[in-house]
């Protein structure tokens, strides 16, 4: 899977002929002496160029549709309510008052802290637990291994709503309702992560384990010093997938928290909508506050996000 960068995409997806002709061919003719240009293809250059322009137009159109909501969010968050109602979005109207007001009424800092604590803990511990289990499933032999694994796989089919009610009752009975434990503990166990890592661990040569065992290494050591170091990219991809999923999760934190101080960002934001359904400036400021850090991290680490979600989304294929 090559998702490294735009160059990789360009290189593989080239339609025909010289990319150079398309690149500096916006106004100028590229000389026939240029490397890689074959005479037979010169004739199609003009229609190709038109095709490319049309494609760019379509892609820019899509981009506008995708970005418009973000743009609207930002713009509305920057003007006071009267200006918004009068549809005046000029620079002279811009102010940060919506942000100040939003921070005053809603403890977004606390939501951030909660989201960060929950997401980081779940990501790290879930991957650790899943990795240990995946190692056992993929590289150790013990009685009942395959039966347990089949049982794991079978439960992948069960939709989340089936378990949300009993898990809520379990959490309540444990006395964990409205606490970090309620948000974190049930999310630490993931059949999917275990499955994904097990598939990957099976592709590593068994000779490595055998050789290490001959040298007297224990299983724990093989896991820590051979298997883990060899699965860096998969772990990183899975980590981003898990983190993103937990950070944006809505139903579970909605169900097991009640006090404002335990809310994560999505739940806090949704409660805010419930209270101020038409104070658009405040709502948009809240949305921007909720999104900004994630978007900044995404733009910086785009490659990893895309890789993580593609790889995990496709079950490691």
């Amino acid at each position: 899977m090559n998702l490294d960068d735009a160059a990789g995409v360009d290189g593989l997806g080239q339609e025909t002929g010289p990319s150079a002709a398309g690149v500096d061919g916006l106004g100028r003719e590229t000389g026939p002496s240029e490397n890689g240009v074959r005479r037979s293809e010169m004739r199609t250059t003009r229609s190709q160029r038109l095709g490319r322009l049309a494609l760019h137009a379509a892609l820019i159109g899509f981009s506008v549709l995708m970005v418009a909501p973000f743009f609207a969010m930002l713009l509305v968050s920057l003007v006071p309510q009267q200006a918004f109602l009068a549809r005046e979005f000029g620079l002279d109207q811009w102010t940060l008052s919506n942000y100040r007001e939003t921070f005053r009424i809603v403890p977004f800092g606390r939501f951030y802290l909660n989201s960060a604590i929950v997401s980081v803990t779940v990501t790290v511990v879930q991957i650790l637990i899943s990795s240990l289990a995946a190692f056992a499933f993929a590289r150790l032999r013990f009685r009942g291994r395959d039966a347990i694994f089949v049982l794991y796989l079978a439960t992948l089919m069960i939709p989340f709503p089936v378990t949300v009610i009993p898990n809520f009752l379990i959490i309540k009975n444990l006395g964990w309702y409205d606490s970090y434990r309620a948000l974190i503990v049930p999310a630490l166990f993931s059949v999917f992560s275990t499955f994904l890592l097990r598939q990957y661990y099976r592709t590593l040569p068994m000779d490595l384990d055998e050789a290490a065992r001959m040298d007297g290494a224990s299983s724990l050591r093989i896991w820590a010093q051979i298997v883990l170091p060899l699965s860096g990219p998969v772990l990183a991809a899975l980590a981003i997938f898990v983190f993103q999923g937990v950070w944006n999760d809505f139903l579970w934190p909605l169900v097991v928290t009640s006090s404002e101080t335990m809310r994560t960002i999505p739940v806090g934001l949704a409660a805010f909508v419930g209270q101020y359904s038409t104070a658009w400036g405040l709502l948009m400021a809240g949305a921007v506050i909720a999104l900004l850090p994630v978007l900044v991290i995404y733009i910086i680490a785009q490659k990893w996000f895309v890789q993580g979600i593609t790889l995990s989304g496709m079950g490691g294929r």
Partner: protein
Amino acid sequence: MSLPPAPRRSLFRWRPDQQWEGYLFLLPSLLGFAVFVILAVTMSLGISFTSWGLTGFRAFVGLDNYRALLRDPVFWQAVRNTAFYLVTIVPMQLALGLAMALALNQGLRATGVYRLIYFMPVVTTVVAGAIVFRLLLSNNGLINVWIQHFAQFTGLPVTPPNWLGSTRYARWAVVILTLWKNTGFTMVIYLAALQGVPRELTDAARVDGAGGWQRLRHVTLPMISSTTFFLFVYQAIGAFQLFTEPFVMTRGGPANSSLSVVQYIYLAAFRDIRMDKAAAMAWFLFIFIFAFTLIQNRLQRRWVYYETE
């Protein structure tokens, strides 16, 4: 699936400790699995056969909860809405995502920038997206302003709908939000699949005189059919479980016209404290998803091409 070979029972390799070591490695995972999956599933099934409310277990009622649901018009409304989400969101998203991926796979410049933009909604919180679309789809929101301009410009008799306030269009509002949010995911997966299609195949088709459309129809699409199948099932399971989008954007209204099944489960369990009814509904959902996946698995043999190595 083949499993790694058993270690030969030679004196040097045989490790009796692997027996308990295996369980030890599995222990943390197995503990959580036993409680939050196995126990939970059993409880859920059990609760669905009982009368269970605020005070917990009241009585064993057999299939009464299921029978009551079959007579519940709101449940059927939620099922119809969810079916609507399924048949709109899944094909539209696949078509849009494929179109974007194909356009991005033509070796244009700035492909990376486009991909960055298309994927942006995927990493955002649905709740934030729902808030913005509530504004964009409000009566005199941006989308209706555009529709008005369009109507004036073309002279067509188009009236902007009251998206969130009408029983007819509230579901479409949810569809629009979901498409915006998830199409980038479909696009990225399709793009990865397209890059795996060998150039020799499309080149050979070109040499044989196949036009762009024919190459797409007879070479590219069959080559990525396993990805289409995966995305189809994946997005369909997502559509079956749609919750946050209608919950935040339309609250299921007006008059339950955009209520999804999972939303109704949530309301039954945590607003009406009817755990029994909610559990029964969750099992109906499971049956729907299971049947759907089974049928798709059967049908895939007819159209999905798997490369055998």
